[in-house]
């Protein structure tokens, strides 16, 4: 069943997070005004991105300078002759036209840039077709691309408070790590400024305090933390207020017998 919505309401970075953590396989179709895009994922990782219909064809490898027209014809013939189950990459490598690493470098750069451009869309319809796969001769990256890294880079290109404030409404909020942030962070390449903030996260300081300690602007801190947040590395919470807050220990406790009576009554309804 397709998941449908608009990236104005459920952002691209949120959708990428869902695909990553849900180990989703399928095709994400996006449209904004006259533009369209199609991304394919395999078990939560990106394997192809096309901003134009022709980017879904093997001809892309010619345009990217990896193959000549004649070599592409030869690869297509081999692919047809050798039957199902073989990938375009495998045929190119077997024909010794290019190495797997060369194909990865060229296609990964193209695929990532295609996705980064989508982060600038203010709105756009999306439809995720579960288990949809690219055509057998489509230019798929040999090694699937981690979505965490894409989210961080995409968020680096966000320069509007509006989108950030959806997730970080105030600089009085504290930042804390989720489970195993160091493990997850291995898939994310952090810039020096991001490391400065990453190292300051202690579950006690507010965003405003982090900004002061790092001498960065509050906007930069919020933008960087928004990236961590979207990639699922950290969470932000309101700073507990003594006047309003109530700790778990202070919460009213109810008697098990009372709860059991309600359960039995509801069961009997």
């Amino acid at each position, binding site marked *: 069943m397709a998941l449908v*919505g608009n990236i104005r*309401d*459920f952002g691209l970075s949120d959708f990428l997070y869902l695909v990553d953590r*849900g180990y989703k396989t399928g095709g994400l179709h996006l449209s904004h005004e006259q533009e369209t895009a199609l991304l394919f994922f395999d078990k939560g990782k990106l394997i192809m991105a096309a901003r134009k219909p022709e980017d879904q064809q093997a001809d892309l490898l010619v345009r990217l300078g990896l193959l000549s027209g004649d070599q592409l014809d030869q690869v297509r013939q081999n692919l047809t002759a050798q039957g199902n189950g073989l990938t375009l990459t495998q045929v190119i490598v077997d024909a010794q036209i290019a190495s797997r690493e060369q194909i990865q470098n060229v296609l990964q750069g193209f695929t990532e840039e295609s996705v980064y451009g989508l982060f600038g869309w203010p709105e756009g319809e999306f439809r995720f077709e579960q288990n949809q796969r690219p055509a057998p001769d489509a230019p798929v990256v040999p090694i699937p691309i981690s979505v965490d890294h894409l989210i961080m880079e995409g968020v680096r290109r966000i320069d509007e408070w509006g989108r950030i404030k959806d997730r970080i409404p105030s600089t009085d909020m504290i930042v804390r790590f989720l489970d195993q942030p160091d493990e997850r962070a291995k898939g994310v390449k952090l810039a020096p400024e991001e490391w400065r903030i990453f190292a300051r996260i202690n579950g006690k300081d507010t965003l405003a305090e982090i900004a002061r300690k790092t001498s960065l602007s509050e906007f930069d801190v919020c933008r960087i933390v928004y990236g961590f947040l979207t990639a699922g590395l950290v969470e932000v919470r309101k700073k507990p207020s003594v006047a*309003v807050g109530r700790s778990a220990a202070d919460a009213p406790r109810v008697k098990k017998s009372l709860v059991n*009576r309600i*359960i039995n*009554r509801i069961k009997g309804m």
Partner: protein
Amino acid sequence: MQTVKMVISGAVNAGKTEFIKAISEIEVVSTERRATDDTKMIKKETTVAMDFGRIAIADDLVLHLFGTPGQKRFDFMWEILSEGMLGLVILVDSTRPETFRETNRIIDFFVSYRDTSYVIAANKQDRPNAWSPDELRLALRQPPHVKVLPCVASDRDSVKNILLELLYVIQERSEE
């Protein structure tokens, strides 16, 4: 007579009134008014104050169900409704991802400052374009221990199941 309270919350048109109507033993007391703002795009009439339902547990014990108003301008009522509540059901319209951010805001309001027992009911699971509970968990960024349950608020058995699942959460945290 002892009364205990459960709160049913969620964004506009999440199904709160329907949920309470499906299980309440009394005619649900709703304060519905013709919608005057953005909500009229979604439904002609909406709950601007609150819904109230009731289930008699025994001669000496009554369960009250309060549905919160979905519109932002009635946020001030949430604080009042949440005082002393036994538990909370957060209803989500599984077919409308545009309400997920608002749902997160509601969860944050009720859960940040209080040690609230709650479950999330993924409503409208009978619709063809509904996001599954697993997808909603990821979309709402809920941790694994929070129950995200399939729900059809017009179906009494489905509503019973949600209340029971919430009660099991409360039971685990209750004292002997």
